């Protein structure tokens, strides 16, 4: 069967290496064609050691500020840079509501998540958005790959995080609540928080506060598709 790129609908012609042709290493079925893939910038090692921001070594100015506020034991990893193409992608996925686009990065996200143990908790979208879209974008991206626990409850906010500027984002008060029916999770050694986009770190660190307030003492890590 032929695979088609979920972004541009062109047929995907896999570029095989010698080892794959000989059947020694496995062929991975990508959901994106090479041309679309090139539009995205995958974050390598040259990034902020804390939040994964590109070209900021060893630590970016955002994280420095967070560390001054006492957040010094969290670590975030993002797959791609939030560039023009990523903006377009999220526009199509979240704003237009094209649920099929969740598959675009699945192969890469799966690779990234191999290093993280369960449990995974996701940042939920607001009721209003959920009703409008009829799907949760974060669950769409990660739900097929890992077991997600809906342990955070999002309290209603007036303005969506995406519609604020940087200052407003940073000033957003806590809007997450830990759902105590999942108290069993708090005995884990490590909890991984997943979200779609990391911009200022505000949301993820609210989640961090939430877990600490609920009494979690283990390691907290977080992952997102874009940074």
């Amino acid at each position: 069967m032929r695979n088609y790129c979920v972004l541009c609908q062109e047929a995907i012609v896999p570029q095989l290496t010698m080892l794959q042709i000989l059947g020694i290493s496995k062929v991975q079925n990508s959901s994106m064609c090479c041309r679309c893939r090139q539009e995205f910038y995958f974050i390598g090692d040259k990034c902020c050691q804390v939040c994964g921001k590109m070209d900021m070594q060893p630590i970016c100015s955002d994280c420095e500020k967070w560390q001054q506020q006492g957040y010094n034991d969290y670590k975030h990893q993002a797959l791609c840079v939030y560039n023009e193409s990523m903006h377009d992608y999220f526009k199509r996925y979240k704003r237009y509501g094209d649920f099929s686009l969740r598959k675009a990065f699945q192969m890469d996200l799966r690779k990234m998540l191999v290093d993280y143990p369960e449990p995974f908790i996701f940042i939920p979208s607001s009721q209003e958005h959920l009703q409008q879209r009829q799907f949760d974008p974060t669950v769409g991206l990660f739900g097929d790959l890992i077991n997600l626990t809906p342990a955070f409850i999002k309290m209603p906010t007036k303005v969506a995080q995406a519609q604020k500027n940087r200052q407003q984002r940073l000033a957003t008060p806590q809007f997450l609540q830990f759902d105590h029916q999942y108290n069993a999770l708090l005995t884990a050694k490590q909890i991984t928080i997943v979200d779609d986009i990391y911009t200022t770190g505000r949301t993820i660190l609210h989640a961090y506060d939430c877990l600490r307030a609920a009494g979690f003492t283990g390691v907290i890590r977080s992952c997102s598709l874009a940074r």
Partner: protein
Amino acid sequence: MQNKELSGRLLVLRQPLVNRSVPALTEIDENTLLCQRCQMSIAKKIYYLGSNTFYCPHCLFLGRLTNKDYLWAVPEINAFPKQSAPLVWQGKLTTQQQIVAQKLCLAEQNNQDYLVWAVTGSGKTEMLFLVLEQAIKKQKRIALVAPRVDVCTELYPRLQQAFAQVSIQLLHGQGAHDYHYTQLLVCTVHQLLKFRQAFDVLILDECDSYPYANNVLLHRAVEQAVKSTHTIIYLSATPSSEYQQLIHKNKLAYSILNRRFHGKDLPVPHFYLCSKKNKHQLPVKLVSRLQNLVTTKQRFLLFVDRILQAEQISQFLQKKLPQLEQTFVHSKDPKRQQKVAAFRKGQRQALVTTTVLERGVTFKNIDVIVWQADSQRFDSQSLIQIAGRAGRSSEFSDNKVSFYATTYNKAIDQAIKTIKKLNHA
């Protein structure tokens, strides 16, 4: 009496309206649905939201349609005032333009489709004025559509001036426009999906260009937006084989206009062969040519094949020729409209651009240079269009067009030969 504001529109409803609405997505077979807005088929296996909720991925940009929605095509009532002399344009047509304009009027009278094959800069818009006037007098509703926003924004003010008393509006996806009911509508082809059987006359400019060419969705959009008796006028400088075949089978009447309105020849491109160089740098030949242009203060457009290239070459020129005032434009550039408008007003000496400016835009006294003319992104049609940016006004009809490339290919050859042929026809 129905509200005229909604006349001709295709409305999306969350609840059905008895005897008027149809379900937005209808079943073709157990695995496939058909979108009633864009007439494209939808694989249920891929495009679902939850159990039993499916959506159309093809016309998402107009708002997502699911199988829970309904559509209502509001009948067009043509509620326009009677006008005796709507055209206030004072200009005069050349004899050749006059002939075509009369043929168009005849086509409108007989509700036939028509193709105008007119070289770049031949004054296509002016040729439409007569047929538009005739249709306006008959209280017909008219859409002028083009595949690209740039062409629409260029067309709109000219029509607004020529038909000052007629209601007109511009509609495209890149700005917030409040829709209101007008007799003339200038819009992108995509916007036509919001209309159903609304237009008596539809003029499709640049009918061979991206994204309309080979796009099933947009072809359907045009078919559905016109009434069952209608006139579609296709305009093109480089008709694709799709139209040439129709002409061949005598299914489409057409006229050729091979002279520019000023009667001078089209500038013939010169080809310069360059040696292979570092990707991000320009060959010496081209740089010295640019230096020359800087000293003579000749303004120019430099076409490159990709968005990234446009930015990189602009940066490179900034370093290499700092005295040259230039910037880049491409389809994803948020400041594109401003940059183009500023350039038209005479700001900056040069623009580094992708094919986004290949057609539909007019600048006065511009030289045209194409770097990597052998790129796959430039086919012969787009090269002809690009060459057509030069020499558009009669005082500066001898602007230079130059193709720089490392190989000479079929597209370049065809483009140059076609231009020569049109000049001698």
